[in-house]
């Protein structure tokens, strides 16, 4: 009966317009929300476009086999990268959702201690997410991620460092811009997906884009995974290069976080962490 009551009565286009206006005002006031609308279709189009280029137009007859053989490993390593960053960002977001940031920033907790706690939580959340998945991969597809041995450790460290660097940048933007920047926590990492060549070799990218890809540590990890699975070759030198770039990225992320924290103090946004 109450459902029918709710459905009855006059329908007001004016009220619909008022609600649409409410959401347009919100969109207009938050550039990350607008960027998010454009971002996802662009990332999808670029990623799948390169996969199509690799599989369909590669001159190598083994290309489809190469792509298929490394796909599940690439998916799982990508998840480590994404979940590593998301675990960091989500713990931070929990404080924003509960309006607890002011309490924490007013306490003796130092920014580096906060970052260390977020890193620890990122590892814990990742372990909870990934360990059962790796077991399922063995069960269903016979793919044992742990079988990568020491190479997995090198891949893991590099992916986590990149994830934390992005997480630090996102946390800083959240402090400065409030929850309007929340979408970045979910989407910023995906800008790396087409560029870091998760599902295809660097050679598939246009020549002008390849140097950009090689500036990103995950590129070395995904190239390394394919080399290991297909050619049974592990390049410690490439991992060292990735680690070096990661050290710079992590330091950059930390500096960005601290600078954005100072900016938030100038703007007075630490006490106003709403939408």
């Amino acid at each position, binding site marked *: 009966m109450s459902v029918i009551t709710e459905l009855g009565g006059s329908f007001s286009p004016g009220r619909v317009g008022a609600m649409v206006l409410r959401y347009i005002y919100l969109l207009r006031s938050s550039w990350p929300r607008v960027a998010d609308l454009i971002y996802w279709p662009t990332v999808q189009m670029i990623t799948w476009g390169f996969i199509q280029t690799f599989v369909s137009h590669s001159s190598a007859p083994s290309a489809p086999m190469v792509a298929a053989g490394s796909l599940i490993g690439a998916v799982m390593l990508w998840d480590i990268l994404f979940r590593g960053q998301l675990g960091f960002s989500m713990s931070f977001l929990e404080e924003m959702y509960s309006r*607890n940031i002011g309490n924490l920033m007013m306490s003796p907790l130092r920014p580096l201690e906060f970052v260390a706690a977020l890193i620890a939580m990122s590892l814990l959340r990742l372990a909870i997410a990934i360990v059962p998945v790796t077991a399922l991969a063995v069960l269903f597809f016979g793919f044992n991620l742990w079988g990568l041995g020491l190479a997995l450790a090198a891949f893991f460290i590099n992916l986590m460092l990149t994830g934390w660097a992005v997480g630090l940048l996102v946390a800083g933007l959240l402090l400065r811009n409030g929850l309007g920047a929340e979408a970045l926590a979910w989407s910023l990492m995906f800008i790396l997906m087409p560029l870091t060549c998760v599902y295809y070799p660097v050679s598939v990218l246009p020549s002008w884009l390849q140097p950009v890809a090689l500036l990103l540590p995950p590129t070395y990890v995904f190239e390394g995974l394919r080399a290991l699975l297909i050619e049974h070759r592990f390049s410690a030198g490439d991992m060292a290069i990735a680690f070096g770039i990661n050290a710079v990225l992590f330091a950059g992320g930390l500096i960005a976080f601290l600078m954005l924290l100072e900016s938030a103090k100038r703007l*007075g946004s630490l*006490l106003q962490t709403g939408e």
Partner: protein
Amino acid sequence: MGAAPAHSKAIVLSDVTKLYKGKAAVSHLSFSIAQGSVTALLGGNGAGKTTTIGMIMGLILPTAGTVRVLGVDMAVDRHAVLGRMNFESPYVDMPHRLTVRQNLTIFAKLYGVARVKNRVAELAEDLALGDFLDRPSGQLSAGQKTRVALAKALINEPELLLLDEPTASLDPDTADWIRARLETYRRRLGATILLASHNMAEVERLCDRVIFMNAGSVVADDTPQALLARFGRDDLEDVFLDVIRGQAARSVPKESVR
């Protein structure tokens, strides 16, 4: 006030200005607060109270001027004194899914409190939290939340307590109960309390000094009794209205505006 030695001042603001997009929220603000005093920071909405408290907490950076708290410049080394102060504000909350006990335990650890369990138990007794100590913080009533927020603010037995609207949205009985606890705390530890409030009865009861702000500046600063006498009013609410509506400039002698 100016003759007091530096070490006896809990808070010193020197020519502090805060601009937001070029507009002054606080303009050339200077005052100091003696240790062990209870001071009210009053003013209408947008007077600059919350910005001022934010700068004292070090959560907002002044555009110009310095804020010293317990002898430390907050823009330079706020972490040196954060363990000796605490605050309660309607602008912050605690994680809703955690129980009151879990929240207080975490803040006790953040503030380096010794014997955490004992301290939480003490606060639970002092502030009558026992009935809901193991309930999620998000399920509390407004009055219960205020008591928990006060417990968090007292967790480290701060020398300096900053309170922004400590009894807002509480019924008169609960508000009175909170005020009594604050008076007890101050008497027991000799703590300095700075509170922003719109409740004039609260101010008259708790405070030995009142600073009125309007449009980002101090427009009157004295004891409640002296302000009542100067404005020829019977209660602070009327003084508040006089100040906010611009009567201060006509009726307040210049020396009372510090």
